[in-house]
């Protein structure tokens, strides 16, 4: 039972005796890129939808590793020389679990976590991260129990506290335990396919056709024989003639129960309407033992088994491709593959990430426009250079809409892309109207920043960003009206905040002080964008209430998310009324518009962190740190600018007063 030994050594932390400080050199066989590309679009059913394997691999790597790729040092020089894509990493974990156990996987950001679980380290707080391998968790550490066992014990203890009550180290331990358990389940999932079961005992072998070893796909077809033998020997389980019958029965029972939260790899016979749920390994083994597994699914299992259990890489790759082709053929017949192929293509193209580079390029072109203000062609080049990545970003959003058959925004990740696109588009339109080179300078900066944040959030969240919707959100009408409207309001609100901040910075630094028209144009633009934002915010907020009235039975429940949206409306309406009644002029208007960015961010993101209300999601602490960093930076910049402007104003007034006297 080679696979059982593997499971015991890798997952059963308690059996380890090695010295945790000995680093093992990674020896790995590279994958053929064409095979990896094919496997990326392998359809699987996971999290309630059919999706490409690449999507599962990426989300899992985000969750357990906190990165988009896996960097390995295979030559032992202390520097990474191999980078694995998520799919390569997952294939390694499934086919070479022993090798993958040495990959630096679990990110530890605080040495106190290492101390708590007894991992030996160099001492002192580091500025970078430490990555633990799966094997390290099973090796002897500084404590009596191995680090993996200590980690699970502590996490179980701290889970009893609410998320708000946990210290950073406790929260880190809980998160790391979740990562370890996720990885542990995934990489053990296909271990039963990695080697044949040894059949011991004369009678047991006789009942299984005289075979001394048997692969899982073959063994599961002897369900009747196994059940009969188990019944007959129920009172004689240690009889020598039935050898390891009860051990194998126990192993099969483990396999049958291994499907929980694991991807289903085998599409069923029949149409989607007849049978929507795919089979995981456990479900397939269960139906095989009950003599009702479909021959197509057994054939798929045999191919997957040939891939996982192969000793030769070429044979393994060939078997994987055959398995993938069989699954694709079945999924295509069921009408489930078209969107998987689209999604695999979407993940490969990564338009949002591509646009990031072009936004940075646009920034250079726009900067050239500031250096050459009289050359109109450069101004146009800046517009075109910004519209190009905007188009890529919009195409990314359109593809997501097509793949999911949904409006642009379904989850928080979508909001980053949508807000970035609307903000940049609004800035471009503003630039075409005002032609002052300010809005167009902000567009690529904001676009690049928001896409970077989107990518950071995607990794931090570690979830499928195309997951199916919960029942109450399953309405394209309100997603298209309320959600897009309110997010359009957010994006314009952020742009107004940026414009206000730019005006304050220009006033505070004296930049282009003589160009009164420019300064006035920025104020007008801030006003116009605030008005644009307000229109969408007010409509979106009220229409959100209309949705709530249809789904929750009340128009307004003072839920944190509703309150957040109301706060933006109140801030913007108060700002406009303050301007109309003369309480604020350009200076006051831009100051409060700049600060409105904090209100927008609070509503967009922060209210979801409170862990209360109907819109609560819950995030890791780094999102909160990022939010507070933004609040303090924005508030700090505004405060410094206001101080500088007031100082300049009073010093200037003093000089003017002093001038006649000296004259």
């Amino acid at each position: 039972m080679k696979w059982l030994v593997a499971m015991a050594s890798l997952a059963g932390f308690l059996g380890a005796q090695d010295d945790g400080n000995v680093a093992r050199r990674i020896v790995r066989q590279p994958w053929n890129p064409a095979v990896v590309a094919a496997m990326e679009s392998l359809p699987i059913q996971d999290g309630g939808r059919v999706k490409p394997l690449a999507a599962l691999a990426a989300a899992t790597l985000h969750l357990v590793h906190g990165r988009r790729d896996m960097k390995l040092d295979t030559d032992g020089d202390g520097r990474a020389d191999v980078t694995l894509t998520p799919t390569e990493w997952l294939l390694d974990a499934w086919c070479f679990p022993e090798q993958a156990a040495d990959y630096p996987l679990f990110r530890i950001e605080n040495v106190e976590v290492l101390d708590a679980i007894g991992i030996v380290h160099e001492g002192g707080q580091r500025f970078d991260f430490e990555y633990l391998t799966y094997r390290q968790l099973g090796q002897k550490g500084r404590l009596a129990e191995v680090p993996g066992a200590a980690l699970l014990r502590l996490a179980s203890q701290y889970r009893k506290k609410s998320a708000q009550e946990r210290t950073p180290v406790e929260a880190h331990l809980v998160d790391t335990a979740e990562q370890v358990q996720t990885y542990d389940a995934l990489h053990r999932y296909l271990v039963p396919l990695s080697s044949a079961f040894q059949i011991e005992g004369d009678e047991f072998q006789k009942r299984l056709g005289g075979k001394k070893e048997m692969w899982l796909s073959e063994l599961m077809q002897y369900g009747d024989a196994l059940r009969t033998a188990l019944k007959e020997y129920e009172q004689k389980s240690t009889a020598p003639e039935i050898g390891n019958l009860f051990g194998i029965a126990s192993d099969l029972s483990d396999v049958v129960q291994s499907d929980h939260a694991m991807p289903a790899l085998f599409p069923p016979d029949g149409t989607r309407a007849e049978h929507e749920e795919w089979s995981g390994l456990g479900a397939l083994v269960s139906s095989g033992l009950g003599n009702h597994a479909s021959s197509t699914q057994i054939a798929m299992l045999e191919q997957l088994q040939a891939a996982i259990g192969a000793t030769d890489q070429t044979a393994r790759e060939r078997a994987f491709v055959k398995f993938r082709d069989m699954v694709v053929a079945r999924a295509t017949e069921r009408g489930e593959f078209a969107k998987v192929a689209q999604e695999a293509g979407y993940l490969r193209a990564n338009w949002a990430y591509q646009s990031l580079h072009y936004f940075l390029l646009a920034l250079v072109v726009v900067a050239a426009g500031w250096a050459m203000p009289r050359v109109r062609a450069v101004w146009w080049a800046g517009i075109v250079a910004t519209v190009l990545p905007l188009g890529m970003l919009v195409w990314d959003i359109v593809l997501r809409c097509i793949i999911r058959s949904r409006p642009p925004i379904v989850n928080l990740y979508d909001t980053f892309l949508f807000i970035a696109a609307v903000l940049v588009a609004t800035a471009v339109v503003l630039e075409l109207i005002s032609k002052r080179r300010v809005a167009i300078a902000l567009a690529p900066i904001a676009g690049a920043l928001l896409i970077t944040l989107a990518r950071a959030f995607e990794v931090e969240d570690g979830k499928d960003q195309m997951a199916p919707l919960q029942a109450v959100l399953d309405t394209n009408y309100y997603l298209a009206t309320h959600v897009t409207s309110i997010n359009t309001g957010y994006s314009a609100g952020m742009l107004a905040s940026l414009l206000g901040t730019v005006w304050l910075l220009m006033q505070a630094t004296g930049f282009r002080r003589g160009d009164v028209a420019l300064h006035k144009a920025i104020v007008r633009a801030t006003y116009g964008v605030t008005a644009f934002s307000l229109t969408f915010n007010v409509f979106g907020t009220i229409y959100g209430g209309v949705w709530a009235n249809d789904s929750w039975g009340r128009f307004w429940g003072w839920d944190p998310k509703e309150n957040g949206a109301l706060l933006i409306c109140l801030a913007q309406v108060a700002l406009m009324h303050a301007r109309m009644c003369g309480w604020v002029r350009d200076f006051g208007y831009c100051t409060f518009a700049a600060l409105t960015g904090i209100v927008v961010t609070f509503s967009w993101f922060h209210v979801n962190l409170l862990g209360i209300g109907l819109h609560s999601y819950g995030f890791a602490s780094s999102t909160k740190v990022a939010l507070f960093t933004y609040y303090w930076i924005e508030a700090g910049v505004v405060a410094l600018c206001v101080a500088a402007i007031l100082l300049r104003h009073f010093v200037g007034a003093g000089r003017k007063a002093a001038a006649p006297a000296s004259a």
Partner: protein
Amino acid sequence: MTAVPAPAERSTVASVLAAVSSMRITVVLLLLLGVLTFAGTLAQEHLSPIDAQREYFESGFVVWDTKVPLFGIRNASDALTVKVPLPGGYTILLLLFVNLVVGGVVRHRWTKRNLGILVTHLGIGLLLVAGFVKMHWSHQGHVSLFEGASSRTMVSFHEYELALLRREGDDIVERVVPATALEGARHGTVKITDASLPFTVEVSGWLDSCQPRLAGPMMKPPGPVATDADGTSVFLESLPYDKDAPGFAGCRVNVVERVGLAEHSAVLFGLGSGPRQNPRQPYTFTIDGVQWGLDLRHELRDLPFEVKLDKFEKTDHPGTANPRDFSSWVTVREQGGEPRQVHIYMNHPLRSHDHVFFQASWGPSPQSGMQGPPFFSVLEVANNPSDAWPKYASYVVLLGLLWHFVAKLFRFLKSSTNRASGEAVS
């Protein structure tokens, strides 16, 4: 020398109107509402949503007492304690409405240029009126049914009532005291008496969220205790708000017989009235051979028609326990009318006779061990006269804002073009 005529003094009414309609007051009220909204949002970390709503947004005055985390750190020592007196939501919204009507509609100049603003103000006014009507004249509750069951009553989520029951043969006659009449029982004793009753009921020790506990030498009761005939003493222990396990209200009752002054005491505990609950067991006592009962329960309201659940269906996303959809097929029977079948599902409520039925939730039967079917369906019911007004308000506000800002944009573009052509000419 001719006397200079004194400037005409504004009448008191005009002065008051000017003050009430001031745009500066608008700004102050909007900012106050912003601070209150922020405070009420943070308060929901330690208050239930309904309590936060009542304390902050439906009140005349509130003291915001909370710890504001600095730098995102939640440790108490790093938090700033804030205690700020604020006008409650009711006060602010009322003043805002007056300010809006007087300043934003009545005293606003009705010109073509201002039409968008006026329309927007009308829409916001309609929204505020809708909120006012909902707060004072709406009722919310639920009807929870297993397949085949029917109901003509809805059960309130948050409101309680004390039912006084009297057995008459096989019938039970009810008289109901609403919880609002028992407000005084929070800090004192409320006496319920009537000439037709042979006793007086004294209600005390009201708690919004509590659980019954047995009193004993090791458990010193913090409040009133009720002692049974067999000597068992029970009291109610107050529970802090827990969003995962919302508590139930409770109180102590003391029944004093009019003749003989014999006393019967008990604690009442307002359990929910869903189909998973066991049959209700009111506190009973007998006086002069007549059996009486007291039942603290979630308020019941009659529906204008009967609702029967014909079928309930819950489907999950494949391979998961996450619900994709859940919906109910019901038969509505109105008095004297033909029964009609209606399909109620997420985001598609049934609207009839000023009542709206929403598919809110479901639950498994106690026999299924909290897992499989049969399920019961929870239909949330709202009786709100202003149900559709916010929808109309949203259209009016959108129309007004678009009118105003688009017109403003066009005026700006026109003036820019004129300026540019003027510069070109010069």
